């Protein structure tokens, strides 16, 4: 079977395939349009893509054939704000909007619930479809939770749900990550929610509030499919790991060259192995010393290797966004793309990398099919 990787960029969706000679761009979709995310559903074979048109709003499209043909489907719609209700953002105190700004996560449901798709949005919405994305319903228990209104934007004007992990052992067990709102967990398919980020630490808050779970900024939260109790987070100010399904988290410090970054990928079969793409922390957001590297741990975060073979090692200013690193189902092939339009692939678990392109538009997301 041909291996396929979808690269969502500021100017379109590019589909990479591995042919005899190696990886190359096989197809471009939505050329010129801002494609912010592309996710394949392995159950149905559908490919979902989200477009963020500056003037015309956020749209969703679905392909039944890997991107050869597309159909526009419904976009999530926020509920009508009650008359006279003016919620305010917790940090700035400005009126909070109830309108879709960004689709930030698309996650197919469990194997036992075909057609179910979860969708995380900005500002702070979690939507669910039971018909492959033909229609969406906002999760009211989470939306109506007063603690949800305490969420605030991290690097954006609005809080957003960017990570959705569906437990492969139990489809009703879902963990989500919010910037900034920490990690939340449901055990009953979304009827009730608990805050689940104990142990995460927020340097950006006053010290007495640093460990409040609801203020945390996990940039991305990923779950090991083989051992779903193990989760990794690339957080705004560090790396965290949970071995109890996300209830408690331990910080992993002193990782060179930096513990700042956006992306993390976990090995599908080995919960001890994870990859990160580090950068100088938040106020700069460029690679340390102008060198693009990937850091990898294979022992649960006790030690890390710095992987650089095939990556630019001088005057490189590529930043890798949270959805722009992915590992395939074997755990051997990885890909990541950057804000300056580079796309690298490794076929040996990160030991070495090859540039597929250095001329793509800014990359928002990279996902293996």
């Amino acid at each position: 079977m041909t291996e396929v990787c979808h690269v969502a960029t500021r100017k379109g969706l590019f589909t990479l395939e591995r042919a005899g000679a190696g990886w190359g761009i096989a197809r471009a979709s939505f050329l010129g349009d801002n494609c912010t995310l592309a996710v394949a559903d392995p159950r149905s074979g559908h490919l979902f893509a989200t477009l963020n048109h500056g003037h015309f709003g956020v749209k969703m499209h679905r392909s039944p054939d890997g991107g050869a043909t597309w159909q526009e489907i419904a976009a999530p719609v926020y509920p009508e704000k009650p008359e006279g209700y003016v919620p305010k953002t917790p940090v700035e105190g400005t009126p909070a909007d109830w309108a879709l700004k960004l689709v930030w996560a698309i996650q197919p449901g469990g194997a036992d619930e075909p057609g179910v798709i979860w969708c995380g949005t900005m500002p702070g919405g979690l939507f669910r479809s039971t018909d492959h994305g033909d229609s969406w319903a906002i999760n009211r228990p989470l939306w109506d939770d007063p603690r949800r209104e305490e969420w605030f934007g991290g690097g954006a004007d609005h809080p957003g749900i960017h990570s959705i992990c569906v437990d492969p052992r139990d489809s009703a067990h879902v963990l989500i990550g919010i910037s900034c709102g920490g990690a939340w967990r449901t055990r009953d398919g979304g009827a009730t929610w608990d805050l689940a980020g104990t142990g995460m630490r927020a340097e950006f808050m006053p010290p007495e509030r640093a460990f409040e779970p609801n203020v945390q900024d996990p940039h991305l939260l990923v779950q090991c499919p083989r051992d779903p109790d193990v989760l990794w987070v690339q957080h705004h100010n560090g790396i965290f790991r949970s071995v109890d399904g996300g209830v408690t988290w331990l910080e992993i410090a002193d990782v060179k060259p930096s513990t700042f970054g956006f992306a993390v990928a976990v090995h599908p079969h080995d919960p001890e192995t994870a990859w990160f793409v580090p950068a100088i922390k938040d106020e700069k957001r460029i690679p340390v010393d102008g060198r693009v590297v990937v850091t990898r741990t294979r022992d649960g975060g006790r030690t890390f290797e710095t992987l650089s073979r095939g990556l630019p090692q001088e005057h490189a200013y590529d930043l890798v966004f949270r959805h722009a690193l992915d590992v395939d189902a074997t755990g051997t092939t990885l890909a990541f793309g950057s804000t300056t339009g580079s796309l690298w692939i490794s076929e040996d678990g990160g030991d070495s990398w090859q540039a597929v392109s250095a001329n793509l538009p800014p990359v928002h997301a990279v996902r293996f099919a």
Partner: protein
Amino acid sequence: MAHVRFTANIQRHVACPPEDVEGATLGAVLDAYFVRHPAARGYVLDDQGRVRKHMAVFIGGRQLEDRRGLADPVGPDEAVDVVQSLSGGATS
């Protein structure tokens, strides 16, 4: 009948042919138009039914005033032009 016309830029994404529709306010005119072309609604209005931030509407050449409630009157035989504003929208 109001004569509703759309910017050419939107046509790449969704079909918005010119139509003559009934309605005494902009809201009524657009509702009537979206009955015929439902896919166009989300391209012009946001989740709360407001004109999208970077869209502009002219009624008989006058700029829309009520972007939230769409209560601006539309005279018989007036043109309603739905265009994109040049402010914002595209970051690069």
